[in-house]
Every structure is written in structure tokens, then in C-alpha cells.
């Protein structure tokens, strides 16, 4: 069958099945199991209302548990085992304790990935938030600010892979005697007169060139959120500062920034989460060569190139470990709001 038809059919079947599940289970509950009539009407209504939330929640809880909660525990288990293919073709898992972690810590590529991830964690959230704050502050004061905002926000819609192509064109290098078609080399050659560089192979700095791509994408996100926060600042505090003779820079850094500090922290952590999982950009631009490896790409390599599920799961656990503080903080915030 044609995939497009298959897709349409799935939408109809999938959505239809979902809706009929909810409808039929509610009908069953109200008509058959605990009908709201007869001698026990009152008790039945109460019982039905106790069960109904779980009917509504069941599909979501099932999918969440199966697709996100269960993998966490399964990954822990896999990271402690080795997959061995026996001579008769079956696969068994041997418990090896921390063997995979020890093997991983002996791999220089892992340390390179971890080190690079740390650099990404420092540079990308900081620059994105800074640029976003700057853009938010500047665009809030001008008439065509909304147009400017939506143009800066636009890279958000572009896939990491698309962005990788866009930026590869910028970093492109041609032989020294040919015309340079990459902007970076065109500028570099005309300014310094040196030979063009293969930028993505320059050690250490190439990681930063990859980070630029993510900063370019995430700045719009930071800008949108921070701009909403800036608008929420009470006018009186700013007016008071003006009356006291503060200049625009003092107003910005001493009055506005401290008031939106919680939002800045929130933007920072959100971008941190994106950075921890960054995969596509590195995969498409360098695939971890020339010292640009990051954890998510290292993991992908272990899983699908080296096919070592144990070490792959171990590196996934490292990512999980790095995410955990944010997870705990988020859950705490949510519980605090609930009270």
C-alpha cells in the first residue's frame, strides 16, 4: 500500500481507536458496571467517579511508563551487562558489573566527548541567554520590534540537520586559488591574505564553530521568553530609577536584570537540557571527527556503529546522570506550585 494512504489510514484508525476507547469505556462504566439508577444509584455514581480518572489517564500513563520510565531502568540494567551472541545465533546478556563503565573510562574518545560536552554546557547557554536578553531588550523599544523578533526567532523552526547544511556552506573552503564560496573563508582570506582554512578540522576551535550553530538556533527561544519577562516588570520600579537619575545601562543591569533573574535561570536550564542531548548538529557536520565528539553522538556510535550495547547504555547513563539535578529541581518546583 502507498505510504501516504497508509498514513491517512493510521490517523483514522489511531484517532478513531483512541476516541472509541474513551467513549466506550465511559459508556461501559456508566451503563453496565455502575449504572446511575436502581437501589444503589448514589453509591454507583461515587464508584464510577472513582474509576473514571483512571480511564482517562490509562493510555497516557501506559505510554509514558513504557516509553520513558521503563527505559530508564532497562538502560541501567543493560549498562551492567554485556551482549554476547552464542555460536547457535541466540543472544544472551551476561552480568558484568561495572565492566562497561571501566571499559568506557579507558576510551579517550569518551573523555573527549565529556570534555566537549562541558564546553558546550558553558558556552551555549551563556551565549544564547546573553544574545536573547540583548535582543529582547533592544526589540522591545522599537516600533518594528515584532518583525525583528520573528526573524531572530525563525531558526527555531529549522531542523538541526538543515542548520548544519546552512552553516557548512558558511564554513566551506575551496582551494587557495579558487573563489571562496564560504563566507568565513571569504572574509578571512580578504582580511589576512592567508590561505583558506578547513575550519571544521581545526582542533579545539572547531567545537566552537559547531556551538555557534546551536547558539544561532536557541537565541530566538531565549529572546521570546525573556522579552515576556521584561514586559512583566512593574513600571514603577523603572520610573523611580529614572527619577533618581539612572542611565539606561544602569536601569537595565541594576533594575531589570535582577527582577527577571528567575526567568533567566529557567531559560538557562532549558537550553542546558537541549545541549546535553545535542546530537544532530555534530552527527551531520563532523560526526565527532577532529576532536568534536559529544556524549550523545558517542553513544550513538557505540550503539549503532560499534554495536556495543553495554558501553552505549553506560554512556546514556552518563547523560541521565547529568540531567538528574535538573529533573529533581523541576519536580520540586512543580510540587511547590501545587501546594
Amino acid at each position, binding site marked *: 500500500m502507498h505510504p*501516504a494512504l497508509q498514513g491517512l489510514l493510521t490517523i483514522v484508525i489511531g484517532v478513531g481507536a483512541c476516541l472509541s476507547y474513551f467513549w466506550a469505556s465511559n459508556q461501559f462504566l456508566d451503563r453496565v458496571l455502575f449504572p446511575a439508577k436502581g437501589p444503589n444509584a448514589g453509591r454507583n455514581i461515587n464508584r464510577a467517579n472513582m474509576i473514571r480518572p*483512571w480511564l482517562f489517564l490509562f493510555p497516557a500513563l501506559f505510554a509514558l511508563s513504557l516509553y520513558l520510565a521503563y527505559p530508564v531502568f532497562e538502560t541501567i540494567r543493560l549498562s551492567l551487562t554485556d551482549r554476547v551472541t552464542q555460536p547457535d545465533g541466540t543472544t544472551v546478556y551476561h552480568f558484568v558489573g561495572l565492566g562497561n563503565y571501566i571499559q568506557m573510562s579507558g576510551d579517550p574518545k569518551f573523555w573527549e566527548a565529556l570534555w566537549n560536552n562541558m564546553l558546550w554546557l558553558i558556552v551555549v547557554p551563556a551565549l544564547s541567554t546573553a544574545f536573547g536578553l540583548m*535582543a529582547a531588550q533592544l526589540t522591545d*523599544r522599537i516600533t518594528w520590534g515584532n518583525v525583528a523578533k520573528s526573524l531572530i526567532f*525563525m531558526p527555531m523552526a529549522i531542523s538541526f540537520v538543515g542548520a548544519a547544511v546552512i552553516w557548512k*556552506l558558511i564554513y566551506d573552503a575551496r582551494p587557495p586559488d579558487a*573563489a571562496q564560496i564560504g563566507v568565513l573563508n571569504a572574509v578571512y582570506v580578504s582580511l589576512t591574505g592567508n590561505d583558506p582554512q578547513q575550519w571544521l578540522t581545526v582542533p579545539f576551535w572547531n567545537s566552537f564553530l559547531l556551538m555557534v550553530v546551536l547558539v544561532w538556533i536557541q537565541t530566538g527561544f531565549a529572546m521570546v*521568553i525573556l522579552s515576556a519577562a521584561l514586559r512583566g516588570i512593574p513600571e514603577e520600579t523603572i520610573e523611580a530609577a529614572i527619577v533618581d537619575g539612572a542611565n539606561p545601562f544602569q536601569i537595565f543591569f541594576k533594575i531589570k536584570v535582577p527582577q527577571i533573574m528567575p526567568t533567566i535561570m529557567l531559560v538557562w536550564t532549558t537550553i542546558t537540557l537541549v545541549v546535553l542531548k545535542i546530537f544532530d548538529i555534530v552527527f*551531520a557536520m563532523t560526526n565527532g571527527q577532529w576532536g568534536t565528539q559529544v556524549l550523545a553522538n558517542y553513544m550513538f556510535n557505540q550503539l549503532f556503529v560499534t554495536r556495543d550495547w553495554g558501553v552505549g547504555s553506560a554512556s546514556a547513563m552518563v547523560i541521565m546522570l547529568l540531567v538528574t539535578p535538573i529533573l529533581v529541581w523541576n519536580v520540586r518546583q512543580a510540587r511547590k506550585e*501545587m501546594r
Partner: protein
Amino acid sequence: MDNIAGHKSSLTWAVHISVVLLVALWLFPTVGLFVSSFRTADQIASSGWWNAMFPTEQSLTLRTADPDAQVQQDGVYVIEGNLFAVEGRDPAPISTFGISSRDVSAFQPGDTAELRDGSALTLQANGDYRLVSAEEITGTRGSRVFVSAEIPPEFTLRNYDTVLGQDVVQRLLMFVGAGLVLWGVARFVLSSQPPVVAQALPVVAGLALMAALAVGFGLSSGAAEGAQTTDDMARAFLSTLTVTIPATIIPIVVAAFAAYALAWMDFPGRALLIAFVVGLLVVPLQLALIPLLKLHLSMGIGKGYLGVWLAHTGFGLPLAVYLLRNYMVGLPRDIIENARVDGATEFQIFTKIILPLSFPALASFAIFQFLWTWNDLLVAKVFLIDASGQTTVMTNQIVELLGTRGGNWEILATAAFVSIAVPLVVFFAMQRYLVRGLLAGSVK
């Protein structure tokens, strides 16, 4: 704030200029890709895209006409013609030419060059040549001539024909035109309907348009005959669409019911479940790859569309439940309690009151999920793409192009732009909802 006392006008100018610079900087990379997708391979290779509007000095390798064309005049063999006409190009002023690849600018226009087989080639600046030989010219193809010429700027849709199949862009524009007309008519006819219908209509029209496009591409993917598989983006476009639409709609339905239960139903353990959802919000999906692939393989789903739909549904649910619950909690309590008093069942309250009122939140999540599934590479690589090469998505296709045709910027730029175009349209059309969703999701 512009009229606050103490505000300096020089600062206003500085602000305007900085914003212009910032926007230019942010737009520049994308514009480069866009412009490059309309240039020919020769043009891209010979000048940066920022020079696309100016004529460029290009080195071309052209050939004289085949030896079949020779005529005997006054005892010598002669081939005459125009170099550009041989390849069907437009003539351009030639500045230098050569007959060996080692010295491509050895001669000036009007000079006569001696070829290796003893014949003599005279080339004029406009491309007219005269090849004279004392003996009969042999071989199957004409002689190579290396020419440097001022080529005027040239823009073409040929790259799109290569990437998507013949005339797909033209057909697509037709579809969009038809869709817009349909949309306008429907909007006009339904203008007296309640706002819910009027709001939902663009979405329905959009889906109808996408279905039409899908069918259109389905028909045309066969038309891209001769194009290499790696260039066959039309098929990848179609698969991306097939992945995206169910993967956007199914989580919305599932999450909406759960969000309603978490927002408006009282039951023990509710707070715990909300915390559970918030926790899952940040779990990296990298952890899920191997366990779920194992699970899919053991359940017999294997790698395929069903698996990728389920995976996207699972990974999208935490955000969906969280966003929708936050929105639904904010709905006025009176409406829901009045409905309960009037004897409406929970199911009726949900479908008749909550769902229509939650339209903005549903739209926000739909956009997020659409962008995320359309742009995804990792999930598709793990759960969809198998060794058979029958299924692929555009992001994967582009990565493969980067590997195999890294230097062919005309193909790469066009392929990338094709994959970016749809999210960009969605982004600009529904930015309002996207921003609202972002704010609801992160700032309380």
C-alpha cells in the same frame, strides 16, 4: 517608553542600528542557502552567493562540434560554429581560452591555437570558432576548449527538478494556489459560524492541503526517473509527512484526556502523577533507544512507521500533558461546575466544553510536536530506517547527501531548503500559538 524624560535620541539610533545588525546576522545564513538553491552548479562554484546578482568570471570546459560536422573546403577540413551553442548555453563574452587543462588561459580571443593533432583553432570573443585541419578530423567527440567567460547572473528551478522530480515546484505552487482559494471560499461561506468553527477551519484546510500534496508527490515521485536514489527527495518528503501527521495527532488525543483528568478530576495520587509527568519532561530520549528497539523487535513491530509513530507519541506525551494540564487548570471553574450540576457527564464536559476552550493550547502543542517530528533525525534513524532503504526521512536523506555529495552545493542547498520550507511556513503562519505555548510551558 520613548517619551520618558532623560531618554537620549542618539541612543534610539544606536538601538535601531544594533537591531538591524542583529537581524541581518541571524538572517544571513538562511538567505545564503535560499539563494544558493536557485543558482546553477557552475555559478555556485565560481562565486559566493552574496555575489549572485553580479556577473561572474567562470571557467568552463566546452567542446567543439563532433567530427561528423566537418566539411571539406579548399582542400582542408573545417568545423565551424559557436562553442556555447554546442552545449545549448547562452553566449557570454570570452576573456581568455586554452586548449590544455594545464594552461587554461593561454590565448586571447581572436588568437589561433595549435592543437595536438595538428589542427588549428581560432576562437572569437563571442564563442564563434573555426577549426581547420589539413587531414580529416577523427575521433568520436569534439576537441575540448577551456574558456574563461563573464557569465551573467542566472537563476534556475532546475535544482528543484533534480531534487524533487520534474516540475514538482510548479505543481506545488498550483496546489498552494488552489488551497488558498479553497480556504478563502470556505472562510467566506462559514464567516457566520461560531468562532470555534472559524478557528478550526484553517487547520482542517491545512490538513486537506497536505493530503492533496501528499497525493501529488506520490504521483510525481515516479516522475523523477533517472534521478539517483540519493537525490530522490520526493520520496523522503512523502515519508516525512507520513511520519509526522499521525505522530502529531495521536499524542494530542491521548494527552488531552489525561490532562483533563489531572486538571479537573479528584482522585488520590494526582499530585504524584503530575510530578511524574514533570520528571519525565527532562528524561533524555537517548535512554529509550535500545530498550525500545529491543521491545519493538520482540513484539514484531520491527522498524517501520508504526514503531516511529509510537515512539514519537511516547516522547511527545510529557510536554503535551504538561502544557494542556497547565492550560486547562486555568479555565473558569464555574463553567465546569455548572455543566456538572446540569447533569452533563464527564465525557460530555470534556468534548463539548474543555476541548473547544483549549484550542490555543492544543494548537501550541500541535506546532511543537509537528516541528519536532518533522525535524527529527535520531528517532527516525533508530525506529524507522532499516537496511532495505525503502523508508527514509528528509533529514536522513540530507545527511547522506552531505556524505556522498558534499561538494554539490546546488543539490545540498536545494534538498535542505525543501526540508526547511514546510516548518518555516508553519512557523510564520502560527507563530502566535508557538509563542503562547513556549510561555505557558516555561514561564508560569
